[in-house]
């Protein structure tokens, strides 16, 4: 189906004898903000790395932007953006040099790239920070720069792995405003986070534990279903339930 | 002290959890020992000799046989064009070409002058010099036997005796020296890299915010490498003694004592380098250039210091390996004690203290 940005079915990954991702099935619609929640080590990053073509799944099916995650990784890569939880731009290059570098790797024409960088730095209010070596930037600005780098080629789907870790509340709020604008313009967002207030911004969320998805749905509906007042409580309840089992 | 133990424990776990590096850290000394023990001999043997014998007499064949039986020369590969010795050398099939002119046997019997031709490939100057010496020596002993009857050569003969290494085994020279090189490699190279690594990945900042002093961090970080280095040194030592049969005539405790001082000097150099660089890539290049290279080249490990230009000889006084090499060879092969090695010991301790002080100063300065 064309309206689904990400479809995975029984996706599984073994690392030796350790099952990091266990028969995960999911469906993310085009244009929605999907919150991918879970405790640390639940298998979120592993799942994202398989979707982005960085890691070969052990078994299961998956399609991203309509393309198979086993065979068509190169086509997928042209249509997705990825912002990892670790800051992964070159610290000894300036923001502008970093953006120019990644744009060139996406084979953007110089004139277009120049325009796009100007556009993004205005959108993300990068201002003069773009001229400084990336390593010298405060965390919040680093995250924005990393976001800009993953948006250069106007991806259809954006994977964000804990994008707001270590960022102050004001910055986080602004960051999410940007994400909202992106979703409005039709970009699908696949976000992992530990902040439950952020999860409430998502149209749908899933909660992962020990490699399995233990709940998925609209945040409000999930609260009603499990008779909880806040996502925080819901998350803790579900995880402790699982631990007891 | 406790804090140092924690940091050392952390560093030790880093080392142990990294089986690949550990594998190389243990295997590298062994392979180096085998290579140096077996492959590295500077004596020149098996020189490829091609002979062009125009005389074809019993005498000329006897002379040629002496060349090949000397142990220094081997028959060169197929050489079809002996009329042109130069082209034989150019092809690399032979290192030297001996030409015996017609009339050689007659000249010998009548004791009349006769010139043999010897064309040598001089590309490798050492090989050329050795080939020339060997040839002359063989010819000398050949001539002695063809002296006219009744004559005897009077004069000086030398009664030669070799001390400490009577079988003239190269491995007795190189393998103990290798311990000095390996201690330097492990200590200086690894510490400079491990500190640079913490800087590069940002964990150094993390450590510095913890309630530990910079000195504790450094001591804690280098301690496991002292252990690793000494372990490697011991490994090579065991190989030297039991596999290559290198004699150990002196005191082990004395050697260990100087080994520790030497390692301190090497580690200080490593720390010093790490304060000057910010990435591991640069750390390794710098460490290679200022620690390993001089230790191999300027210490007397392979090449005699006294044959170097004076400037290099002066520089070699700053190379800790120079002193440790003399100590380890003295202790192992000659059974020397502190009584004769005290000059080296003083220099080594002096260098270690100087390097440690500079490194500590630089490290503190860098943090402020």
């Amino acid at each position, binding site marked *: 189906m064309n309206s689904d940005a990400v479809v995975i079915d029984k996706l599984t990954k073994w690392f030796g004898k350790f099952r990091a991702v266990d028969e995960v099935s999911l469906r993310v619609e085009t244009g929605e903000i999907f919150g991918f929640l879970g405790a640390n080590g639940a298998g979120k990053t592993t799942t994202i790395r398989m979707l982005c073509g960085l890691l070969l799944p052990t078994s299961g099916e998956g399609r991203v932007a309509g393309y198979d995650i086993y065979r068509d990784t190169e086509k997928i890569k042209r249509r997705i953006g990825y912002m990892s939880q670790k800051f992964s731009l070159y610290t000894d290059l300036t923001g502008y040099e970093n953006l120019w570098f990644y744009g060139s*790797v996406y084979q953007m024409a110089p004139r277009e790239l120049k325009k796009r960088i100007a556009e993004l730095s205005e959108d993300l209010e990068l201002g003069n920070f773009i001229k400084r070596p990336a390593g010298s930037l405060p965390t919040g600005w680093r995250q924005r720069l990393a976001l800009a780098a993953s948006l250069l080629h106007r991806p259809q789907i954006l994977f964000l792995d804990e994008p707001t870790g270590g960022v102050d509340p004001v910055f986080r709020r602004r960051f999410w405003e940007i994400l909202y604008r992106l979703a409005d313009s039709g970009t699908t967002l696949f976000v992992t986070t530990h902040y439950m207030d952020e999860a409430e911004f998502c149209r749908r969320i899933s909660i992962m534990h020990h490699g399995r998805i233990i709940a998925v749905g609209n945040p409000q509906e999930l609260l009603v279903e499990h008779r909880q007042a806040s996502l925080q409580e819901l998350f803790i309840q579900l995880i402790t339930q699982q631990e007891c089992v | 002290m406790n804090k140092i133990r924690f940091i050392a424990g952390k560093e030790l776990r880093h080392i142990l959890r990294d089986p690949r590096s550990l594998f190389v850290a243990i295997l590298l000394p062994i392979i180096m020992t085998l290579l140096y023990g077996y492959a590295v001999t500077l004596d020149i043997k098996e020189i490829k000799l091609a002979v062009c014998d125009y005389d074809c007499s019993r005498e000329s064949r006897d002379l040629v046989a002496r060349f090949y039986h000397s142990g220094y020369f081997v028959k060169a590969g197929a050489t079809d064009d002996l009329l042109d010795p130069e082209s034989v050398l150019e092809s690399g099939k032979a290192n030297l070409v001996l030409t015996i002119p017609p009339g050689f046997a007659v000249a010998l019997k009548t004791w009349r002058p006769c010139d043999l031709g010897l064309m040598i490939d001089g590309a*490798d100057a050492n090989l050329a010099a050795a080939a020339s010496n060997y040839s002359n020596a063989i010819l000398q002993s050949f001539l002695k036997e063809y002296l006219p009857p009744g004559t005897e*050569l009077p004069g000086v003969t030398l009664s030669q005796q070799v001390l400490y290494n009577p079988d003239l085994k190269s491995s007795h020279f190189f393998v103990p020296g290798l311990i000095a090189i390996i201690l330097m490699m492990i200590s200086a190279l690894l510490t400079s890299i491990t500190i640079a690594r913490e800087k590069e990945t940002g964990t150094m900042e993390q450590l510095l915010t913890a309630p530990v002093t910079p000195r504790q961090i450094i001591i804690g970080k280098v301690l496991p490498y002292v252990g690793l280095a000494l372990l490697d040194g011991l490994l090579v030592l065991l190989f030297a003694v039991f596999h290559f049969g290198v004699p150990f005539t002196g005191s082990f405790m004395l050697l260990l004592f100087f080994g520790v001082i030497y390692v301190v000097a090497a580690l200080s150099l490593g720390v010093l380098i790490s304060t000057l660089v910010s990435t591991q890539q640069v750390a390794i290049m710098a460490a290679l250039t200022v620690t390993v290279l001089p230790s191999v080249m300027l210490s007397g490990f392979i090449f005699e210091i006294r044959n170097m230009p004076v400037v290099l000889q002066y520089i070699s006084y700053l190379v800790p390996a120079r002193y440790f090499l003399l100590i380890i060879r003295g202790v192992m092969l000659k059974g020397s004690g502190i009584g004769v090695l005290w000059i080296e010991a003083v220099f080594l301790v002096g260098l270690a203290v100087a390097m440690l002080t500079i490194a500590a100063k630089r490290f503190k300065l860098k943090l402020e």
Partner: protein
Amino acid sequence: MFRMVLALVRKEFYQVRRDPVMLRIIFLMPIIQLLLLGYAINTDVKNIRTAVYDYDRSDLSREFMRSLGAGGYFVTRPSDIPLLAGERGFRENRQDVMLVIPPGFSRDLKERQSVTAGFLVDGTNASSAAVAMGYANLISAEFNRELYRLSLPVTLRQKVLYNPEAESVYFMVPAIVAILLTMVTVMLMSMAIVREREIGTLEQLLVTPITKPALLLGKAIPFSLIGLVEFSIALVFGVIWFGIPFAGSWTLLYLLAFIFLFTTLGVGIFISTITKTQQQAMFFAWFFSIFAILTSGFFIPIQNMPQSIQYLTYLNPVRYFLTVIRGIMMKGVGLEALYPNIIAMIVFSVGIFTFAWLRFAKRTK
């Protein structure tokens, strides 16, 4: 593709330019190494320190010492240690040889009798001890001949080709240049890839549609250029400073250096596929370099090694490059004499590079 490669190359140069220490090292390292190695590598046995106990004190004994010292091989000086304690001189590392001239030396010689002088050698350095003994024998034979005006009928008329002044530096510098190219490119290449993996930028690169050829070329080109620059600095410096004659073709040399680069870059890429941290990569690169240097014939002639190790040297790609560079520089030979080595080089380059290329996976298993 072209733009991707260009972007990577430019990025790499920006990074090098930002790191002043790196820059300095890149340009200073070849010169320091060349100076150090060029002057230090000298296996000539000269200046053998000889402590003399002359119990004859005659003109003839002094004449014998003079001829011993004449060639620059032995430096004689009277010993200040009593003969019975003479070994201390070896332990204190003050002498290499002890020469004992017995009383009655000149009397016996004048009576045309044989005289035996004591010659004790420190055998610690086995090869120089052997050479010292050989020299001493030759010199004393020569001394005898001159003393009694003996003329031997047969003499050797020697001619040394290619390096008539017997300068070992001429032999060493071409090899140093080759070794430098090997070490720098293997280390930089392997560490460059692993470094990006360690700091996380490699992952960011791999989610872009960058192709494997673009990625590997983009990494390989800057480091080959750096390698070639170092190679050239060392080469030009060697020719000018040490006055090394360059007999052959520069074009052929650079062409072959270019082919050889694929070997070292291949090794670098391969190392990056089996290591996770720069420390590991450095270790493996160092491991390779030591093997490559020791078994290449750099300063230890291959023909002296045991047969089994001689076979092993055929597996060392540097061996062939060393033969080639020495052949071109010193003998001025071309393809006709070097083709077996060149073929071996090409086989290794293609083989190693292809193997590394196939092993390098963009997606982890």
